């Protein structure tokens, strides 16, 4: 129907024009068409406006009206001309514009923000601060929820009013700490040494050093809690280095009481060289078994930009033996770099030390990095791979090879 209508209209239009031209009524036609279009426009307008007229610019009035008081306020404010205040203002505007910017920012953070060399560095830093703030907020909220729940539970418990009978006093954490410390002290005398090489400060950014220290704190705590702890050595440790300052932030006064050895000496000065093995993902050698007589060295380094060969270079310079974890051998690797975090290394080494079971130890590799454990031994896998390859090559390839060797001998 519609198409038929259209056709009709077209016919009418096309017939009108020659008709008008014939009679020399150009002016009238012009008028006619104008009124026509006008009426059309009016119609549209009517359909557009529902019932009453809509004041489309009403929002402008609102925005402008609420202003005058505020303007006077801003005038009254003492003009802050310092660059810090200006930076704070821009940050506020960015936040209003919906960018990832933290709500509160300290003076120190503002300074680091201003020292960022590029726009993208600034953006990155702000996003980091924003996420940090978000996590903190969420943690706080969760804590409060938990506290409320606990209070409720206590209320209920007091209502029932049951007295507990137990032969132990409730001093778990303190006694546990004592037991742990006892073990750690023992490991300092009899334990197997494990060296953390703290000479990578200049290879890292400030944030990477902070991450390193965090990982070291985690590994120290899991070592302390283990059945048979390592005797941890922090070698090449310079006093008042960035590492040191970060450690103090975490441990505060406990830093002096830690049951580990901290020294500015190199591991080669403390231990015989032939006993040292430097663990690095870049090593061509793959670790087969955990040796209880050797001293393993782990580089205390977080390299977000994947600086290949830094720790291998260090081991090469000192002429030390190196080794890498047999990740490929046991795991079907999917994504991610082969370098693991320090606390993961610690977990793996502790498990190996206790059980010598690679499977159990490599459970600590993050799950996202691998698809699963290799079931069949690698040797057999290789054999089948070779078989497939020879089948692929086919007989022709073999013949070619034979011919080549023949030709070669002729020459």
């Amino acid at each position, binding site marked *: 129907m519609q198409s038929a209508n259209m056709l009709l209209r077209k016919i009418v239009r096309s017939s009108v024009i020659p008709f008008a031209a014939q009679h020399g009524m150009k002016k009238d036609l012009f008028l006619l068409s104008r009124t026509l279009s006008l009426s059309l426009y009016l119609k549209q307008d009517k359909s557009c406006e529902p019932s009453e007229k809509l004041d489309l610019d009403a929002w402008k009035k609102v925005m402008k009206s*609420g202003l005058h008081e505020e303007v006077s306020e801003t005038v009254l404010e003492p003009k802050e001309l310092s660059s810090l205040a200006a930076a704070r*203002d821009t940050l506020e505007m960015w936040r209003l514009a*919906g960018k990832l910017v933290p709500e509160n920012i300290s003076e120190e953070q503002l300074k680091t923000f201003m020292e960022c060399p590029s726009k993208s560095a600034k953006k990155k830093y702000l996003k980091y601060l924003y996420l940090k703030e978000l996590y903190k907020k969420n943690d706080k909220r969760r804590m409060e929820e938990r506290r409320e729940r606990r209070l409720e539970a206590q209320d209920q418990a007091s209502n029932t009013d049951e007295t507990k009978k137990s032969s132990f006093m409730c001093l778990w954490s303190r006694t546990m700490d004592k037991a742990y410390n006892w073990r750690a002290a023992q490991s300092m005398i009899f334990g197997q040494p494990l060296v953390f090489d703290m000479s990578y400060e200049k290879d890292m950014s400030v944030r990477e050093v902070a991450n390193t220290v965090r990982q070291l704190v985690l590994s120290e705590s899991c070592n302390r809690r283990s059945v048979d702890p390592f005797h941890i050595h922090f070698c090449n440790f310079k006093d008042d280095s960035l590492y040191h300052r970060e450690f103090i932030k975490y441990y505060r006064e406990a830093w002096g009481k830690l049951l580990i050895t901290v020294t500015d000496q190199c591991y080669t000065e403390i231990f015989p060289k032939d006993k040292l093995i430097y663990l690095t993902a870049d090593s061509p050698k793959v670790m087969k078994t955990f040796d209880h007589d050797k001293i393993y060295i782990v580089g205390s380094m977080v390299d977000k930009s994947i600086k290949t060969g830094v720790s291998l270079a260090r081991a090469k310079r000192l002429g030390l033996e190196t080794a890498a974890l047999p990740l490929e051998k046991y795991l079907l690797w999917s994504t991610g770099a082969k370098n693991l975090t320090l606390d993961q290394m610690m977990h793996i080494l502790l498990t190996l030390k206790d059980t010598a079971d690679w499977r159990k130890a490599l459970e600590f590799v993050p799950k996202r990095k691998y698809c699963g454990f290799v079931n069949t031994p690698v040797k057999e896998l290789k054999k089948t791979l070779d078989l497939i390859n020879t089948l692929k090559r086919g007989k022709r390839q073999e013949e070619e090879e034979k011919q080549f060797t023949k030709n070669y001998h002729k020459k």
Partner: protein
Amino acid sequence: VQPPEKPLQSEEWNKLREDFQSPEIFEEVMLNSMIRCNSPIDVAKSLLTYLAKRNGDIAYNMLVKYLALCVQQGQVSEICDVYDIMKVRFKILESGAYTLLIKGLTNSDQWRMALTLLEELKKITIPSRTCYESCIKAASRHQEMKLAFELYNEMLAKDVVPTLGVLQSFFDFSRGRKGAELQKEIFGILLYLRENQVYPHKTFMRSIKLWFESIPGGNWRGRLTKIKDSGQCPVCNHQLEDSNLTEEEYSNLSERIIKDVIHGTDTFRKTSPQEFEAFQTFVENRPPFDIVIDGLNVSHIKPRKMQCENLFDAVNCLAKENARLLVLGRKHMLVNSSNWKREIMKEMQNKADFFFAENISEDDAFLLYATLRSGKHCKFVTRDFLRDHKACLSDSLTRHLFRKWQLIYHINSKKIYFFSIFFQQPAFHYDCVVQTTGDTWHIPYKDVFEEKYSYQVPRKWLCIHQK
């Protein structure tokens, strides 16, 4: 969400909002989709009115979004209104709003206002290149070439890379205009193209051509052409610049490569001092080589063949030309294995010099050193583009030298048939950059649709000469 086609009353907006799954962000989502669908501005206005009535205020990000819609539709008076509101409402604006305002105003009669906005923006940050682009284009559109060039030079001084559009607009808008000053500035742009290895695209090239031909009394003529392999221009018979590095550039490059690539932050990362020294004496004790072969790389050319066979083919092929060969490899090649037959290795060592690095060393660094050390005539064979080594170089100038050198000295090996295994890709004898002799200009350009990789250079040229 589908934005409505007509302005709505507050009640209607309210209803829509309540139907929306998360009412808090309803307005934001709605405005976003309005921008996407390019809805009529009145609809957005009615939404803002509804918002203002409900909250008595409109958030900054909503204003910016509305501004984006206005800019998209070129509603200049609205843009000015929004700017007025923002200016009174907020102490300062952020760069996103400024960028939108500048973009919106430069397309109108109010373009001079955009310049003041640019000044304001400079106070908080370095303006982006699109901001500069809009301002420069607006200035040159209104024949304020001096102002446009001022902005352009300011942009370069701030290390903001100009877009090709900016550069092109200079040629477009100064067409047919006289003036020694103007001509000097435009030649400056061409030199910028030369120094930064920027290749104009086809339409840009056409602008350049038209500009040259329009210079009153200049008698310039432009022709599109392809340069012969010898480096001669078929149109004006002019010989293009030689691609060889100058002595100074060459020694500079080899110095930087030893310093940045081989030693870097730690010599032990790629090799060891002893090994490097051994290699240095090895190279020094022999006459210069003609071709340096990356043994391991070449040995992987045909994956179905034994690796030493591949290498053997390559060495045989290249040795025929009576060239002095150096093959770089690793020690594991010497161990008799299924891929590396001892007899073949021995045979090869009669035809070429071999150097075997430690298995954990990087042989590419040695490849670079040996080639550079042997002199300008020496070439190397590898399929590797050596990007990682180029990245080790500390400044962009040396990186460019490296690239130039690499283009010349890189022989790509490709197989055509089973028998003839290698053919030499003809290295360019001429330098592929914008160049001039005063009365001729040669400008390489690329077709817009032609895909060009960073390692390729365009083959088409614009030849401009004076009659």
